[in-house]
Protein backbone atom coordinates (compact mmCIF):
# COMPACT_ATOMS: atom_id res chain seq x y z
CA UNK A 1 0.00 0.00 0.00
CA UNK A 2 1.32 3.44 -0.89
CA UNK A 3 1.62 5.96 1.91
CA UNK A 4 -1.12 8.11 0.44
CA UNK A 5 -3.47 5.17 0.16
CA UNK A 6 -2.81 3.98 3.67
CA UNK A 7 -3.32 7.49 4.98
CA UNK A 8 -6.66 7.61 3.22
CA UNK A 9 -7.49 4.19 4.61
CA UNK A 10 -6.68 5.36 8.12
CA UNK A 11 -8.68 8.53 7.68
CA UNK A 12 -11.69 6.49 6.61
CA UNK A 13 -11.29 4.28 9.61
CA UNK A 14 -11.18 7.25 11.95
CA UNK A 15 -14.27 8.67 10.28
CA UNK A 16 -16.05 5.34 10.64
CA UNK A 17 -15.11 5.08 14.30
CA UNK A 18 -16.25 8.63 15.00
CA UNK A 19 -19.60 7.98 13.39
CA UNK A 20 -20.00 4.67 15.21
CA UNK A 21 -19.10 6.27 18.53
CA UNK A 22 -21.37 9.30 18.20
CA UNK A 23 -24.25 7.07 17.15
CA UNK A 24 -23.78 5.01 20.30
CA UNK A 25 -23.62 8.09 22.48
CA UNK A 26 -26.77 9.42 20.78
CA UNK A 27 -28.74 6.54 22.20
CA UNK A 28 -28.68 3.75 19.63
CA UNK A 29 -28.45 1.45 22.63
CA UNK A 30 -32.15 0.85 22.89
CA UNK A 31 -34.18 -2.36 23.03
CA UNK A 32 -35.50 -1.61 19.48
CA UNK A 33 -39.07 -2.60 20.21
CA UNK A 34 -40.71 -0.98 17.20
CA UNK A 35 -43.03 -3.35 15.32
CA UNK A 36 -43.29 -3.23 11.52
CA UNK A 37 -46.02 -0.78 10.49
CA UNK A 38 -48.24 -2.01 7.64
CA UNK A 39 -49.72 0.11 4.85
CA UNK A 40 -53.01 0.00 6.74
CA UNK A 41 -51.35 1.22 9.94
CA UNK A 42 -49.89 4.15 8.03
CA UNK A 43 -53.11 5.00 6.24
CA UNK A 44 -54.87 5.08 9.59
CA UNK A 45 -52.67 7.84 11.00
CA UNK A 46 -51.38 9.82 8.03
CA UNK A 47 -53.72 12.62 6.97
CA UNK A 48 -51.36 15.38 5.89
CA UNK A 49 -51.69 16.59 2.34
CA UNK A 50 -48.83 18.40 0.65
CA UNK A 51 -48.95 21.53 -1.52
CA UNK A 52 -48.27 19.39 -4.61
CA UNK A 53 -51.28 17.23 -3.81
CA UNK A 54 -49.54 14.20 -2.32
CA UNK A 55 -52.00 12.19 -0.21
CA UNK A 56 -55.14 13.81 -1.64
CA UNK A 57 -57.95 11.22 -1.74
CA UNK A 58 -60.07 10.20 -4.72
CA UNK A 59 -63.34 12.04 -5.27
CA UNK A 60 -64.43 15.41 -6.61
CA UNK A 61 -66.90 18.23 -6.00
CA UNK A 62 -68.60 21.34 -7.34
CA UNK A 63 -69.36 24.61 -5.59
CA UNK A 64 -73.14 24.29 -6.12
CA UNK A 65 -73.18 21.18 -3.96
CA UNK A 66 -70.67 22.74 -1.61
CA UNK A 67 -72.94 25.70 -0.98
CA UNK A 68 -75.79 23.43 0.10
CA UNK A 69 -73.45 21.48 2.38
CA UNK A 70 -71.93 24.65 3.81
CA UNK A 71 -75.35 26.00 4.69
CA UNK A 72 -76.10 22.85 6.67
CA UNK A 73 -72.77 21.99 8.28
CA UNK A 74 -70.69 25.14 8.47
CA UNK A 75 -72.85 28.24 8.49
CA UNK A 76 -73.68 28.06 12.21
CA UNK A 77 -70.08 28.92 13.13
CA UNK A 78 -68.55 30.49 10.04
CA UNK A 79 -71.56 32.64 9.11
CA UNK A 80 -73.41 33.39 5.92
CA UNK A 81 -71.13 32.93 2.90
CA UNK A 82 -68.24 32.34 5.31
CA UNK A 83 -68.26 35.91 6.63
CA UNK A 84 -67.38 34.68 10.15
CA UNK A 85 -69.56 34.35 13.26
CA UNK A 86 -68.50 32.37 16.33
CA UNK A 87 -65.58 31.02 14.28
CA UNK A 88 -63.17 32.65 11.85
CA UNK A 89 -64.16 34.32 8.61
CA UNK A 90 -63.36 32.13 5.61
CA UNK A 91 -63.82 34.82 2.97
CA UNK A 92 -62.38 38.26 2.27
CA UNK A 93 -59.28 40.20 3.25
CA UNK A 94 -57.49 40.08 -0.11
CA UNK A 95 -55.26 43.12 -0.42
CA UNK A 96 -55.46 43.87 3.32
CA UNK A 97 -52.28 42.18 4.55
CA UNK A 98 -50.00 45.20 4.24
CA UNK A 99 -52.59 47.63 5.65
CA UNK A 100 -53.26 48.61 9.25
CA UNK A 101 -56.31 46.33 9.37
CA UNK A 102 -55.11 43.03 7.94
CA UNK A 103 -57.72 40.30 7.59
CA UNK A 104 -56.25 36.81 7.38
CA UNK A 105 -58.62 34.29 5.81
CA UNK A 106 -58.09 31.19 3.73
CA UNK A 107 -58.64 33.44 0.69
CA UNK A 108 -56.30 36.27 1.62
CA UNK A 109 -53.62 34.43 3.55
CA UNK A 110 -53.25 30.72 3.02
CA UNK A 111 -50.71 29.84 0.34
CA UNK A 112 -51.87 26.39 -0.85
CA UNK A 113 -55.33 25.03 -1.68
CA UNK A 114 -54.65 21.31 -1.01
CA UNK A 115 -53.74 21.96 2.62
CA UNK A 116 -56.96 23.93 3.13
CA UNK A 117 -58.86 20.90 1.84
CA UNK A 118 -56.87 18.68 4.19
CA UNK A 119 -57.81 20.75 7.23
CA UNK A 120 -61.50 20.87 6.32
CA UNK A 121 -61.60 17.14 5.59
CA UNK A 122 -59.80 16.14 8.75
CA UNK A 123 -61.03 18.78 11.21
CA UNK A 124 -64.43 20.13 10.12
CA UNK A 125 -67.25 20.48 10.89
CA UNK A 126 -65.60 21.30 14.19
CA UNK A 127 -67.92 19.20 16.33
CA UNK A 128 -68.00 16.23 13.95
CA UNK A 129 -64.78 15.99 11.94
CA UNK A 130 -64.58 13.40 9.16
CA UNK A 131 -68.36 13.08 9.10
CA UNK A 132 -68.79 13.98 5.41
CA UNK A 133 -67.63 12.11 2.30
CA UNK A 134 -64.56 12.98 0.25
CA UNK A 135 -66.84 14.28 -2.52
CA UNK A 136 -68.58 16.51 0.02
CA UNK A 137 -65.29 17.88 1.30
CA UNK A 138 -64.12 18.64 -2.26
CA UNK A 139 -67.46 20.38 -2.84
CA UNK A 140 -67.28 22.69 0.23
CA UNK A 141 -63.68 23.49 -0.69
CA UNK A 142 -64.83 24.42 -4.20
CA UNK A 143 -67.55 26.64 -2.72
CA UNK A 144 -65.12 28.46 -0.41
CA UNK A 145 -62.59 29.00 -3.22
CA UNK A 146 -65.34 30.38 -5.46
CA UNK A 147 -66.63 32.67 -2.70
CA UNK A 148 -63.11 34.06 -2.46
CA UNK A 149 -63.02 34.67 -6.20
CA UNK A 150 -60.13 32.25 -6.58
CA UNK A 151 -61.93 29.71 -8.79
CA UNK A 152 -64.17 30.31 -11.79
CA UNK A 153 -67.80 29.31 -11.17
CA UNK A 154 -68.38 25.67 -12.07
CA UNK A 155 -64.79 24.52 -11.50
CA UNK A 156 -64.36 20.85 -10.70
CA UNK A 157 -62.29 20.37 -7.57
CA UNK A 158 -60.39 17.12 -7.10
CA UNK A 159 -56.91 15.68 -6.51
CA UNK A 160 -55.97 16.67 -10.04
CA UNK A 161 -57.14 20.30 -10.07
CA UNK A 162 -56.60 21.39 -6.47
CA UNK A 163 -52.77 21.52 -6.55
CA UNK A 164 -53.00 23.75 -9.64
CA UNK A 165 -55.08 26.40 -7.92
CA UNK A 166 -53.01 29.54 -7.55
CA UNK A 167 -53.72 31.12 -4.16
CA UNK A 168 -53.41 34.94 -4.06
CA UNK A 169 -50.91 34.83 -1.16
CA UNK A 170 -48.86 32.01 -2.68
CA UNK A 171 -45.64 34.03 -2.42
CA UNK A 172 -46.52 35.81 0.79
CA UNK A 173 -44.33 33.78 3.14
CA UNK A 174 -40.67 34.22 4.01
CA UNK A 175 -38.78 31.34 5.58
CA UNK A 176 -37.50 32.24 9.04
CA UNK A 177 -35.79 28.96 9.88
CA UNK A 178 -33.13 28.71 11.08
CA UNK A 179 -32.79 32.52 11.07
CA UNK A 180 -35.23 35.40 10.84
CA UNK A 181 -34.19 37.37 7.71
CA UNK A 182 -32.13 40.48 8.55
CA UNK A 183 -34.80 42.79 7.26
CA UNK A 184 -37.18 41.78 10.04
CA UNK A 185 -34.60 41.52 12.78
CA UNK A 186 -33.56 44.30 15.09
Amino acid at each position, binding site marked *: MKTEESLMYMRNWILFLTIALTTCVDG*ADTPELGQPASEADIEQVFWSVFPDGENLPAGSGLAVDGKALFNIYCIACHGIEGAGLTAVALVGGQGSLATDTPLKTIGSYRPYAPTIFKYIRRSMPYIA*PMSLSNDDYYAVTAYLLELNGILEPGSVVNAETLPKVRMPNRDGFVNAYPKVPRKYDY
Partner: protein
Amino acid sequence: MMTKQDQLDDLPPVAANGLLDRRLFMKSLALGGVGTLAAPVLANPVGEGQLPWLLAPGQGAQSYGSPSNYEQLARRIDPPGLWPEGNTIAGSSSAYTPHQGLTGTYTPSGLHFEINHHGIPDIDPDRHTLVIHGMVDRPLKFTTETLDFYPTVTRSHFMECSGNSWLLWEDEPGDLLLDESHGLLSGSEWSGVSLAALLDEAGVQAEGKWIIAEGADSGTLSRSIPMEKAMDDSFIALYQNGERLRPGQGYPMRLYNPGFEGNTSVKWLRSLRVTDRPAMTKFETANYTDLMPDGKALQFSLKLEVKSVITRPSNATVLPKKNAVYEVTGLAWSGSGRIRKVEVSADGGATWAEAELQGPVLPIMLTRFRLPWRWDGSPAILQSRATDETGRVQPTRTQLLDARGKHGHYHYHAIHSWGVDANGGIAHVYA
Protein backbone atom coordinates in the same frame (compact mmCIF):
# COMPACT_ATOMS: atom_id res chain seq x y z
CA MET B 1 -81.15 25.14 79.50
CA MET B 2 -78.63 22.31 79.69
CA THR B 3 -74.99 23.27 79.45
CA LYS B 4 -72.44 21.12 77.65
CA GLN B 5 -71.20 19.98 81.03
CA ASP B 6 -74.70 18.90 82.05
CA GLN B 7 -75.04 16.91 78.84
CA LEU B 8 -71.79 15.13 79.55
CA ASP B 9 -72.78 14.34 83.12
CA ASP B 10 -76.06 12.87 81.91
CA LEU B 11 -74.47 10.32 79.60
CA PRO B 12 -74.99 6.74 80.78
CA PRO B 13 -71.72 4.88 81.44
CA VAL B 14 -71.40 1.41 79.89
CA ALA B 15 -68.49 0.37 82.12
CA ALA B 16 -66.47 1.88 84.88
CA ASN B 17 -64.12 4.82 84.65
CA GLY B 18 -65.85 6.84 82.00
CA LEU B 19 -66.53 4.43 79.15
CA LEU B 20 -69.60 5.57 77.32
CA ASP B 21 -72.09 4.00 74.94
CA ARG B 22 -70.51 3.23 71.56
CA ARG B 23 -73.59 4.60 69.82
CA LEU B 24 -72.90 7.95 71.35
CA PHE B 25 -71.05 9.32 68.35
CA MET B 26 -73.88 8.38 66.05
CA LYS B 27 -76.34 10.05 68.34
CA SER B 28 -74.18 13.11 68.75
CA LEU B 29 -73.66 13.24 65.03
CA ALA B 30 -77.37 13.54 64.60
CA LEU B 31 -77.42 16.29 67.17
CA GLY B 32 -74.37 17.88 65.59
CA GLY B 33 -72.60 17.48 68.85
CA VAL B 34 -69.48 15.44 67.99
CA GLY B 35 -67.28 18.47 68.29
CA THR B 36 -68.61 19.11 71.74
CA LEU B 37 -67.39 15.74 72.84
CA ALA B 38 -64.22 15.41 70.81
CA ALA B 39 -62.90 18.81 71.84
CA PRO B 40 -62.00 19.44 75.45
CA VAL B 41 -64.86 21.08 77.20
CA LEU B 42 -63.58 20.78 80.71
CA ALA B 43 -63.07 23.85 82.81
CA ASN B 44 -60.09 26.09 82.04
CA PRO B 45 -58.61 24.17 79.09
CA VAL B 46 -55.07 25.34 78.44
CA GLY B 47 -55.88 25.58 74.75
CA GLU B 48 -58.44 28.30 75.22
CA GLY B 49 -57.91 31.08 72.71
CA GLN B 50 -55.61 28.97 70.54
CA LEU B 51 -56.18 28.69 66.80
CA PRO B 52 -58.71 25.98 65.95
CA TRP B 53 -56.29 23.78 63.99
CA LEU B 54 -54.16 23.40 67.09
CA LEU B 55 -57.02 21.87 69.05
CA ALA B 56 -58.01 18.88 66.96
CA PRO B 57 -56.15 16.59 64.57
CA GLY B 58 -56.47 17.55 60.95
CA GLN B 59 -57.76 15.39 58.13
CA GLY B 60 -55.89 12.33 56.90
CA ALA B 61 -53.63 12.24 53.87
CA GLN B 62 -55.26 12.49 50.44
CA SER B 63 -54.48 9.96 47.74
CA TYR B 64 -53.67 12.85 45.39
CA GLY B 65 -52.71 16.06 47.14
CA SER B 66 -54.36 19.38 46.43
CA PRO B 67 -53.57 22.97 47.39
CA SER B 68 -54.70 24.55 50.65
CA ASN B 69 -58.37 25.45 50.97
CA TYR B 70 -57.15 29.01 51.41
CA GLU B 71 -55.34 29.17 48.06
CA GLN B 72 -57.31 30.28 45.05
CA LEU B 73 -54.44 30.29 42.56
CA ALA B 74 -55.72 28.90 39.28
CA ARG B 75 -55.12 29.16 35.59
CA ARG B 76 -56.88 31.86 33.70
CA ILE B 77 -59.16 30.43 31.03
CA ASP B 78 -59.83 32.62 28.02
CA PRO B 79 -63.34 34.00 27.99
CA PRO B 80 -65.15 33.16 24.76
CA GLY B 81 -64.37 35.53 21.95
CA LEU B 82 -60.99 36.72 23.18
CA TRP B 83 -58.97 35.00 20.52
CA PRO B 84 -58.10 37.30 17.68
CA GLU B 85 -59.29 34.58 15.34
CA GLY B 86 -62.69 35.27 16.86
CA ASN B 87 -63.42 31.68 17.83
CA THR B 88 -65.91 31.20 20.63
CA ILE B 89 -66.07 27.44 20.43
CA ALA B 90 -65.67 25.51 23.68
CA GLY B 91 -62.95 23.09 22.58
CA SER B 92 -60.71 25.78 21.13
CA SER B 93 -59.38 27.07 24.43
CA SER B 94 -56.37 28.33 26.35
CA ALA B 95 -55.31 28.18 30.01
CA TYR B 96 -52.66 30.59 31.29
CA THR B 97 -50.07 30.07 34.05
CA PRO B 98 -50.64 32.55 36.92
CA HIS B 99 -47.05 33.82 37.27
CA GLN B 100 -48.26 36.60 39.56
CA GLY B 101 -48.75 33.98 42.28
CA LEU B 102 -45.84 31.63 41.57
CA THR B 103 -42.20 31.58 42.44
CA GLY B 104 -39.39 29.18 41.54
CA THR B 105 -38.83 27.90 38.02
CA TYR B 106 -40.87 24.69 37.82
CA THR B 107 -44.56 25.23 37.17
CA PRO B 108 -46.93 22.88 39.01
CA SER B 109 -48.29 20.50 36.36
CA GLY B 110 -51.88 21.55 36.98
CA LEU B 111 -50.93 25.18 36.35
CA HIS B 112 -48.90 24.58 33.18
CA PHE B 113 -50.35 26.57 30.29
CA GLU B 114 -52.38 24.87 27.59
CA ILE B 115 -53.75 25.68 24.20
CA ASN B 116 -56.08 23.14 22.73
CA HIS B 117 -57.21 23.97 19.23
CA HIS B 118 -59.58 21.03 19.09
CA GLY B 119 -60.24 20.21 22.72
CA ILE B 120 -58.51 17.63 24.92
CA PRO B 121 -58.98 14.05 23.71
CA ASP B 122 -59.63 11.35 26.29
CA ILE B 123 -57.10 8.83 24.96
CA ASP B 124 -56.98 5.21 26.09
CA PRO B 125 -53.23 4.50 26.03
CA ASP B 126 -53.82 0.84 25.16
CA ARG B 127 -55.44 1.94 21.90
CA HIS B 128 -52.84 4.53 21.01
CA THR B 129 -49.82 3.87 18.79
CA LEU B 130 -47.09 6.03 17.36
CA VAL B 131 -46.25 5.25 13.73
CA ILE B 132 -42.99 6.36 12.07
CA HIS B 133 -43.19 6.17 8.29
CA GLY B 134 -42.36 7.88 5.00
CA MET B 135 -38.72 8.07 3.93
CA VAL B 136 -37.50 5.38 6.29
CA ASP B 137 -36.06 1.91 5.68
CA ARG B 138 -38.41 0.28 8.19
CA PRO B 139 -41.81 1.85 8.96
CA LEU B 140 -42.39 1.13 12.64
CA LYS B 141 -45.11 1.42 15.25
CA PHE B 142 -44.70 1.80 18.98
CA THR B 143 -47.16 1.38 21.79
CA THR B 144 -47.05 3.58 24.87
CA GLU B 145 -45.97 0.59 26.88
CA THR B 146 -42.97 -0.30 24.69
CA LEU B 147 -41.58 3.23 24.92
CA ASP B 148 -41.24 2.75 28.68
CA PHE B 149 -38.50 0.19 28.03
CA TYR B 150 -36.30 2.73 26.25
CA PRO B 151 -33.52 4.67 27.99
CA THR B 152 -34.98 7.78 29.58
CA VAL B 153 -34.21 11.29 28.43
CA THR B 154 -34.96 13.78 31.22
CA ARG B 155 -34.66 17.52 30.70
CA SER B 156 -35.87 20.66 32.41
CA HIS B 157 -37.25 23.04 29.80
CA PHE B 158 -39.54 25.97 29.52
CA MET B 159 -42.35 25.83 27.04
CA GLU B 160 -43.76 28.97 25.53
CA CYS B 161 -46.50 29.58 23.02
CA SER B 162 -45.24 31.99 20.38
CA GLY B 163 -48.51 33.82 21.01
CA ASN B 164 -47.39 34.57 24.58
CA SER B 165 -47.72 38.34 25.26
CA TRP B 166 -49.66 38.92 22.02
CA LEU B 167 -51.79 41.50 23.80
CA LEU B 168 -48.67 43.65 24.20
CA TRP B 169 -48.58 44.26 20.44
CA GLU B 170 -51.69 46.41 21.01
CA ASP B 171 -51.36 50.19 21.07
CA GLU B 172 -52.37 50.42 24.74
CA PRO B 173 -50.78 48.20 27.39
CA GLY B 174 -54.09 47.20 28.98
CA ASP B 175 -54.95 46.16 32.51
CA LEU B 176 -53.69 42.58 32.39
CA LEU B 177 -52.43 40.39 35.18
CA LEU B 178 -49.26 38.45 34.49
CA ASP B 179 -51.21 35.36 33.51
CA GLU B 180 -52.77 37.25 30.63
CA SER B 181 -49.62 39.06 29.55
CA HIS B 182 -47.05 36.28 30.09
CA GLY B 183 -48.97 33.15 31.08
CA LEU B 184 -48.46 31.14 27.89
CA LEU B 185 -45.12 30.18 29.43
CA SER B 186 -44.29 27.42 31.93
CA GLY B 187 -41.35 25.31 33.07
CA SER B 188 -41.23 21.58 33.79
CA GLU B 189 -39.05 18.53 33.98
CA TRP B 190 -39.99 16.35 31.03
CA SER B 191 -39.01 12.70 30.59
CA GLY B 192 -39.35 10.39 27.67
CA VAL B 193 -37.48 8.83 24.78
CA SER B 194 -34.96 10.34 22.37
CA LEU B 195 -36.56 10.97 18.98
CA ALA B 196 -33.21 10.36 17.25
CA ALA B 197 -33.12 6.86 18.75
CA LEU B 198 -36.56 6.00 17.32
CA LEU B 199 -35.67 7.56 13.96
CA ASP B 200 -32.43 5.56 13.86
CA GLU B 201 -34.39 2.42 14.57
CA ALA B 202 -36.63 3.18 11.58
CA GLY B 203 -33.63 4.16 9.44
CA VAL B 204 -34.14 7.65 8.01
CA GLN B 205 -33.22 7.83 4.32
CA ALA B 206 -30.87 10.47 2.96
CA GLU B 207 -33.69 12.54 1.38
CA GLY B 208 -35.53 12.79 4.70
CA LYS B 209 -35.25 16.46 5.64
CA TRP B 210 -38.51 17.13 7.48
CA ILE B 211 -40.86 15.27 9.77
CA ILE B 212 -44.60 15.86 9.71
CA ALA B 213 -45.90 15.29 13.23
CA GLU B 214 -49.62 14.64 13.65
CA GLY B 215 -51.63 14.47 16.86
CA ALA B 216 -54.59 12.26 17.75
CA ASP B 217 -56.89 15.16 18.64
CA SER B 218 -60.13 15.64 16.71
CA GLY B 219 -58.40 18.16 14.45
CA THR B 220 -55.16 16.17 13.91
CA LEU B 221 -53.02 19.16 14.71
CA SER B 222 -49.97 18.81 12.46
CA ARG B 223 -46.62 20.55 12.23
CA SER B 224 -43.53 20.12 10.04
CA ILE B 225 -40.29 19.78 12.01
CA PRO B 226 -36.82 20.19 10.44
CA MET B 227 -34.92 16.88 10.56
CA GLU B 228 -31.89 18.70 11.92
CA LYS B 229 -33.89 19.59 15.04
CA ALA B 230 -35.45 16.14 15.35
CA MET B 231 -32.01 14.52 15.29
CA ASP B 232 -30.51 17.09 17.64
CA ASP B 233 -32.53 17.27 20.86
CA SER B 234 -36.20 16.52 20.23
CA PHE B 235 -37.79 13.77 22.28
CA ILE B 236 -41.07 12.00 22.86
CA ALA B 237 -42.25 13.18 26.28
CA LEU B 238 -44.16 10.64 28.37
CA TYR B 239 -43.81 12.23 31.80
CA GLN B 240 -44.04 15.73 33.19
CA ASN B 241 -42.62 16.54 36.61
CA GLY B 242 -42.27 12.82 37.30
CA GLU B 243 -45.81 11.72 36.55
CA ARG B 244 -47.48 10.66 33.32
CA LEU B 245 -48.40 13.56 31.06
CA ARG B 246 -51.75 15.05 31.85
CA PRO B 247 -54.39 14.93 29.10
CA GLY B 248 -54.03 18.66 28.46
CA GLN B 249 -50.29 18.13 27.92
CA GLY B 250 -50.68 15.35 25.37
CA TYR B 251 -51.30 12.13 27.28
CA PRO B 252 -50.05 9.53 26.60
CA MET B 253 -47.23 11.06 24.51
CA ARG B 254 -46.21 14.32 22.92
CA LEU B 255 -43.39 15.53 20.78
CA TYR B 256 -41.04 17.90 22.59
CA ASN B 257 -38.88 20.34 20.64
CA PRO B 258 -36.79 22.27 23.18
CA GLY B 259 -36.69 26.00 22.52
CA PHE B 260 -39.20 25.87 19.65
CA GLU B 261 -42.61 27.52 19.82
CA GLY B 262 -44.95 25.35 21.89
CA ASN B 263 -47.31 24.45 19.05
CA THR B 264 -44.57 22.39 17.35
CA SER B 265 -44.41 20.06 20.36
CA VAL B 266 -47.40 18.21 19.01
CA LYS B 267 -49.57 16.71 21.75
CA TRP B 268 -51.23 13.27 21.57
CA LEU B 269 -48.57 12.39 19.00
CA ARG B 270 -49.37 9.41 16.80
CA SER B 271 -47.76 9.92 13.43
CA LEU B 272 -44.28 10.98 12.31
CA ARG B 273 -43.93 11.12 8.53
CA VAL B 274 -40.40 11.55 7.23
CA THR B 275 -40.44 13.67 4.05
CA ASP B 276 -38.24 15.86 1.89
CA ARG B 277 -40.40 18.99 2.41
CA PRO B 278 -42.77 20.62 4.88
CA ALA B 279 -46.53 19.97 4.61
CA MET B 280 -47.51 23.65 4.98
CA THR B 281 -50.23 22.69 7.45
CA LYS B 282 -52.92 25.03 8.77
CA PHE B 283 -50.88 25.62 11.93
CA GLU B 284 -47.79 26.72 9.99
CA THR B 285 -49.67 28.95 7.53
CA ALA B 286 -52.97 30.30 8.91
CA ASN B 287 -51.53 30.43 12.45
CA TYR B 288 -48.06 30.72 13.96
CA THR B 289 -46.78 32.86 11.09
CA ASP B 290 -45.79 36.48 11.75
CA LEU B 291 -47.31 39.12 9.48
CA MET B 292 -44.77 41.85 8.73
CA PRO B 293 -45.51 45.49 7.82
CA ASP B 294 -44.85 44.85 4.11
CA GLY B 295 -47.60 42.23 4.03
CA LYS B 296 -45.19 39.27 3.95
CA ALA B 297 -45.30 36.74 6.78
CA LEU B 298 -42.46 34.96 8.54
CA GLN B 299 -42.96 31.22 8.31
CA PHE B 300 -41.19 28.61 10.45
CA SER B 301 -40.16 31.27 12.95
CA LEU B 302 -39.74 28.28 15.22
CA LYS B 303 -37.09 29.30 17.69
CA LEU B 304 -38.18 31.26 20.74
CA GLU B 305 -36.30 34.45 21.45
CA VAL B 306 -34.57 35.71 24.56
CA LYS B 307 -37.11 37.22 26.92
CA SER B 308 -37.71 38.14 30.56
CA VAL B 309 -40.35 39.60 32.83
CA ILE B 310 -40.45 40.80 36.44
CA THR B 311 -42.97 38.67 38.31
CA ARG B 312 -42.71 40.42 41.71
CA PRO B 313 -43.59 43.13 42.31
CA SER B 314 -46.35 43.10 39.69
CA ASN B 315 -49.77 44.66 39.26
CA ALA B 316 -51.22 41.87 41.42
CA THR B 317 -50.05 43.83 44.50
CA VAL B 318 -49.53 47.36 45.83
CA LEU B 319 -46.23 48.20 47.50
CA PRO B 320 -47.18 48.56 51.17
CA LYS B 321 -44.49 50.97 52.38
CA LYS B 322 -42.24 53.76 51.09
CA ASN B 323 -38.52 53.97 51.78
CA ALA B 324 -38.30 50.22 52.06
CA VAL B 325 -36.16 47.63 50.33
CA TYR B 326 -38.02 45.20 48.08
CA GLU B 327 -36.86 42.21 46.11
CA VAL B 328 -37.34 42.56 42.39
CA THR B 329 -37.55 39.04 40.96
CA GLY B 330 -38.64 37.51 37.71
CA LEU B 331 -38.04 34.96 34.99
CA ALA B 332 -35.73 34.96 31.99
CA TRP B 333 -35.55 32.39 29.20
CA SER B 334 -34.25 31.79 25.69
CA GLY B 335 -34.88 29.13 23.07
CA SER B 336 -31.20 29.27 22.13
CA GLY B 337 -29.69 28.07 25.40
CA ARG B 338 -28.74 29.43 28.79
CA ILE B 339 -29.43 32.87 30.14
CA ARG B 340 -26.12 34.64 30.52
CA LYS B 341 -27.25 37.79 32.26
CA VAL B 342 -30.32 39.72 33.36
CA GLU B 343 -30.19 43.44 34.03
CA VAL B 344 -32.79 45.39 35.94
CA SER B 345 -33.66 49.07 35.59
CA ALA B 346 -35.77 51.17 37.96
CA ASP B 347 -35.71 54.29 35.80
CA GLY B 348 -37.26 53.06 32.57
CA GLY B 349 -34.04 51.84 31.00
CA ALA B 350 -31.77 54.86 31.63
CA THR B 351 -29.51 52.88 33.97
CA TRP B 352 -29.17 49.13 34.50
CA ALA B 353 -27.81 46.84 37.21
CA GLU B 354 -26.99 43.16 36.84
CA ALA B 355 -29.30 40.89 38.81
CA GLU B 356 -28.32 37.72 40.63
CA LEU B 357 -29.25 34.55 38.73
CA GLN B 358 -30.57 31.67 40.76
CA GLY B 359 -28.60 28.52 39.92
CA PRO B 360 -28.39 26.12 38.37
CA VAL B 361 -28.88 28.06 35.16
CA LEU B 362 -30.09 25.39 32.74
CA PRO B 363 -30.25 25.61 28.95
CA ILE B 364 -33.70 26.36 27.51
CA MET B 365 -35.19 26.60 31.00
CA LEU B 366 -36.71 29.37 33.07
CA THR B 367 -34.04 31.18 35.06
CA ARG B 368 -35.01 33.23 38.08
CA PHE B 369 -33.28 36.53 38.78
CA ARG B 370 -33.32 38.78 41.83
CA LEU B 371 -32.15 42.23 42.81
CA PRO B 372 -32.87 44.32 45.90
CA TRP B 373 -34.54 47.67 45.23
CA ARG B 374 -35.10 50.55 47.61
CA TRP B 375 -38.30 52.32 46.69
CA ASP B 376 -38.21 55.94 47.83
CA GLY B 377 -41.89 56.51 47.17
CA SER B 378 -41.59 58.35 43.88
CA PRO B 379 -42.89 57.00 40.56
CA ALA B 380 -40.58 54.45 38.97
CA ILE B 381 -40.45 52.20 35.92
CA LEU B 382 -39.13 48.70 36.56
CA GLN B 383 -37.73 46.72 33.63
CA SER B 384 -35.69 43.59 33.06
CA ARG B 385 -33.47 42.86 30.07
CA ALA B 386 -32.12 39.37 29.39
CA THR B 387 -29.07 38.31 27.40
CA ASP B 388 -28.59 34.67 26.41
CA GLU B 389 -25.42 32.66 25.92
CA THR B 390 -25.39 33.38 22.19
CA GLY B 391 -25.23 37.09 23.00
CA ARG B 392 -28.81 37.85 21.90
CA VAL B 393 -30.23 40.74 23.92
CA GLN B 394 -33.91 41.34 24.53
CA PRO B 395 -34.98 44.29 22.35
CA THR B 396 -36.87 47.37 23.46
CA ARG B 397 -40.48 47.60 22.40
CA THR B 398 -39.56 50.34 19.93
CA GLN B 399 -36.81 48.21 18.35
CA LEU B 400 -39.20 45.29 17.99
CA LEU B 401 -42.01 47.35 16.47
CA ASP B 402 -39.61 49.17 14.14
CA ALA B 403 -38.45 45.83 12.74
CA ARG B 404 -41.71 43.89 12.73
CA GLY B 405 -44.59 46.35 12.76
CA LYS B 406 -47.52 45.67 15.06
CA HIS B 407 -49.49 42.94 13.34
CA GLY B 408 -47.02 40.10 13.87
CA HIS B 409 -49.23 38.69 16.62
CA TYR B 410 -46.60 36.06 17.53
CA HIS B 411 -43.14 36.24 19.11
CA TYR B 412 -43.58 39.41 21.15
CA HIS B 413 -40.48 39.41 23.33
CA ALA B 414 -39.67 43.05 24.03
CA ILE B 415 -38.43 44.40 27.36
CA HIS B 416 -41.42 44.66 29.66
CA SER B 417 -42.13 47.66 31.89
CA TRP B 418 -43.99 47.98 35.19
CA GLY B 419 -44.95 51.54 36.09
CA VAL B 420 -44.95 52.14 39.86
CA ASP B 421 -46.93 55.19 41.01
CA ALA B 422 -46.43 57.30 44.15
CA ASN B 423 -48.99 55.18 46.03
CA GLY B 424 -47.19 51.93 45.26
CA GLY B 425 -49.75 50.97 42.62
CA ILE B 426 -48.33 49.04 39.66
CA ALA B 427 -49.45 48.85 36.02
CA HIS B 428 -48.20 47.69 32.63
CA VAL B 429 -46.70 50.64 30.78
CA TYR B 430 -44.89 51.04 27.50
CA ALA B 431 -41.57 52.75 28.09
